[in-house]
């Protein structure tokens, strides 16, 4: 026998509460009597008992039976009909790595899955699904029960957060399309309202956790070669925590900081003045439920220079940028952009040009042509005056706007969410967008050529935005599950995962999508190693206190085979109704009848 709603069984724990009204009702009336001499002799055994002799009326036992039946009915007991074709959807998201009494939730889920498989007959068929990186079947053909047990053991959780999946809809579709007799979802989320054929098994319980939410290592500025790093740590617990943050460079401990983090808050630790290493690792020195989010990785800024890919129909206007120290400039025409190897650039400048799709790297758009995704341009302004600007802001720092006079400008009409940095009376002139750590800047005027002291306000602004982009180039990290942008791959290129697996890259591939694990990925290309840091940074997944519940409506259409369950609860409900009738109507009448009979005998 199984229970579709086993949480209702917790109600049984509350059954002893039924005694309370009887005990309260039994609280003795206090009466003063002349002498208890004869009474104490009468019933010495009753003395000193706080509640006297506990005698419970038959009505109590009827009520107890009634409540027990109701609770059992709420728990929806069913007699399982043995299925032969089932699907097991195993949640393999990062939170399944949470440790529960020495075992991870994923191990617990595997045990549950194996026990489901063990219940199947020899001819049974099992299909296994995992939930991340997407809900997908492990193997196209069904497993036999013995194969399935092995396949379950071979599964492992990924360092990826949950996808937003409407499990009710998705599992119902699976049931309909694949004709499963039963579908089991094993997850660490609480599940409500399961049906007869779609069953959810929850593992784990809410826990406190400390998580390293962000880790960045960068150079202080374009002109400053000193390295600095910041670590953001969140405390997902109900009490203040004092923790130690360690910074390692290529495995060697560099520095450490102590942080005191209030309950439910986050705090940031800064490091500076450490030596250059190929990659850095931040670690918080705690033993908590989820070890995965106690570490984060970052690769060092590749060089002290900002590599710029300038795309312009008039490249000569941008050539002067190459004169700025720390800037390395490559100029191409818009027609060459799609064919160009674009990896390793800290900034792409689109000068009177726009790409077919927005780049996933920092980009500057100077007077972009119409039909771009970011802004529309207004009519040219005859005499440009800056009438307002954001202050303080890294882009407006040290700029004397009274002398800031672009020779040609068009007001911007933003089509996307972002910040207006400064504006003329006719409209915004500079518009900044930051999405998932990638910065885009749109200018309604042309700041080039870079004239240095020849146009000091414009030159200061130019240096400001280069610094702004340079800073973001250092911050850019890859979250687990996001593709790594590699440029065009050639034959023999290898990607080495944090576990040391060597994956050959397809020639011509621009991206590597298998970033399911946190750590340092190495791209081996032409004898050179390029490092990528991939981090699991998902605050929702790290917060183990109250995982989002999965609501199942319980109505299952279609599916294969006979009914999955024989439900008892209607019979239990009927029985409880019967007990209620006895307790409410029949029992008091019988009691009063008995009293009348007794009094008649006495008379």
């Amino acid at each position, binding site marked *: 026998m199984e229970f579709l709603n086993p949480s209702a069984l917790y109600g049984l724990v509350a059954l002893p509460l039924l005694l309370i009204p009887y005990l309260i009702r*039994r609280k003795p009336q206090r009466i003063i009597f002349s002498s208890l001499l004869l009474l104490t002799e*009468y019933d010495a055994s009753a*003395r000193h008992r706080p509640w006297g002799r506990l005698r419970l009326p038959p009505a109590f036992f009827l009520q107890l039976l009634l409540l027990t039946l109701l609770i059992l009915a709420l728990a929806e007991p069913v007699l399982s009909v043995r299925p032969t074709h089932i699907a097991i959807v195993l949640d393999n998201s990062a939170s399944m790595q949470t440790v529960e009494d020495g075992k991870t939730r994923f191990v617990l889920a595997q045990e549950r899955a194996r026990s489901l498989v063990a219940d199947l007959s020899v001819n049974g068929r099992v299909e296994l699904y995992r939930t991340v990186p997407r809900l997908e079947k492990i193997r196209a053909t069904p497993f036999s029960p013995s194969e399935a047990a092995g396949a379950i053991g071979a599964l492992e959780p990924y360092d990826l957060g949950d996808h937003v999946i409407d499990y009710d809809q998705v599992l119902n579709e699976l049931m309909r399309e694949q004709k499963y007799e039963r579908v089991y979802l094993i997850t660490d989320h609480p599940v409500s309202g399961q049906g007869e054929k779609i069953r959810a098994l929850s593992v784990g319980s809410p826990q406190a956790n400390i998580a390293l939410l962000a880790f960045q290592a960068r150079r202080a500025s374009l002109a400053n070669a000193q390295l600095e790093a910041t670590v953001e740590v969140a405390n997902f617990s109900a009490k203040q925590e004092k923790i130690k943050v360690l910074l390692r460079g290529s495995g060697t401990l560099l520095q450490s900081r102590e942080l005191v983090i209030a309950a439910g808050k986050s705090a940031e630790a800064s490091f500076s003045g450490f030596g250059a290493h190929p990659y850095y690792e931040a670690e918080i020195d705690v033993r908590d439920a989820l070890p995965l989010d106690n570490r984060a990785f970052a690769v060092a800024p590749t060089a002290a220079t900002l590599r710029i890919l300038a795309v312009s129909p008039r490249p000569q206007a941008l050539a002067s940028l190459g004169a700025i120290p720390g800037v390395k400039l490559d100029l191409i025409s818009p027609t060459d952009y799609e064919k160009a190897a674009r990896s390793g650039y800290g900034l792409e400048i689109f000068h009177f040009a726009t790409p077919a799709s927005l780049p996933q790297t920092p980009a500057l758009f100077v007077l972009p042509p119409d039909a771009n995704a970011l802004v529309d341009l207004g009519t040219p302004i005859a005499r440009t005056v800056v009438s307002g600007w954001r202050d303080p802001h890294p882009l407006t720092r040290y700029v004397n706007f009274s002398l800031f006079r672009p020779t040609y400008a068009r007001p911007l009409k933003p089509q996307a969410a972002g910040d207006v940095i400064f504006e003329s009376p006719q409209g915004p002139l500079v518009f900044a967008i930051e999405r998932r750590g990638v910065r885009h800047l749109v200018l309604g005027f042309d700041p080039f050529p870079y004239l240095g002291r020849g146009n000091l306000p414009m030159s200061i602004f130019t240096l400001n935005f280069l610094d702004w982009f340079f800073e973001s180039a250092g911050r850019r990290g890859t979250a687990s599950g996001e593709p790594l942008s590699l440029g065009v791959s050639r034959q023999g290129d290898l990607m080495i995962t944090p576990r040391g697996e060597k994956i050959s890259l397809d020639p011509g591939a621009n991206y590597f999508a298998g970033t399911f694990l946190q750590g340092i990925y190495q791209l081996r290309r032409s004898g050179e190693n390029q490092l990528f840091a991939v981090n699991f940074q998902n605050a929702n997944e790290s917060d183990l206190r109250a995982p989002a519940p999965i609501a199942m409506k319980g109505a299952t259409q279609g599916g294969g085979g006979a009914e999955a369950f024989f439900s008892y609860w209607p019979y239990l409900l009927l029985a409880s109704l019967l007990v209620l009738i006895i307790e409410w109507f029949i029992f008091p009448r019988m009691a009063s009848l008995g009293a009348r009979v007794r009094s008649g005998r006495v008379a």
Partner: protein
Amino acid sequence: MLPEPFTPAFLTQLETLRLRTRKEFLGSHPGSYSSPRRGTSLEFADYRRYSPGDDLRYLDWGIYARSDRLYIKLFREEVDLFAYVFIDASASMLFPSRAEKFLPASHVALALAYVVLANHDHVKLHLLQDPPPSAASPFYRGRRRMTECVEFAASAKPAGQLDLAPALGEHLKRLRRPGKAILISDFLMPAPSYQQGLNVLRGFNLDIVAIQVLSRQEVDPAFPNGNLALVDSESQAEFQYRWDTGARQSYRTRLAHHNSEIRSFCHQSGIHYSLYVTDRDLKDFVFATLPAIGLFK
């Protein structure tokens, strides 16, 4: 002004009564009770040989005619009576209320006191309380002192827990004359306790009357059925009971047994005993029950 039951008619009826004693006491004044001494009453006691100086009026001339010897007739001395009325003034005498137990008990005491006063005998009222101070009135004599008796009884403030023997002992230490002792109490105490108390009185050669006073609530408790926390009015001890028909019946049986034990002890000890349930008419008790146990002549 005397309280309610002591109407002129009731007092007149009381004046017709005289306490009866089963012992002879040495009185202080001539009275109507026999004394062990020879005196001048009309009740013949004995003969003795004539000796010179005897009053010739008491010579028995008949004996002299028959035997030629001179004998003097001796008569009993009749003296007055000293009566001691002991009233239990413990906290249990206030249950269920003063008016329903202690007042009826004091009315019995006053009625008997008036009988004594009306006969020109001496009566002294004692309040039994433990711990001391236990109060005792002076000796009263003559019916005009009834008011003072009433005032003394009215001034009593029952309280505390009574241990009968020590409390009586305190009073008896100051007694100089034997007489009639009337003990009025609910006797709701262990048998050894009341037996020791009565034995103390017996030890002082007193002619004892024990009157047990109980309220109707004590004879037939009207507790609601169910669990009760009963508190002892004297010790304040609290006990938990489930009160039902069986418990009520058992209590009645035990009370009857307790009372019969008191009656039996009194009978064996030569003590007049009577039970007065306070909802009964006082006159009926005084004029019907008490004469029946031989308290009055």
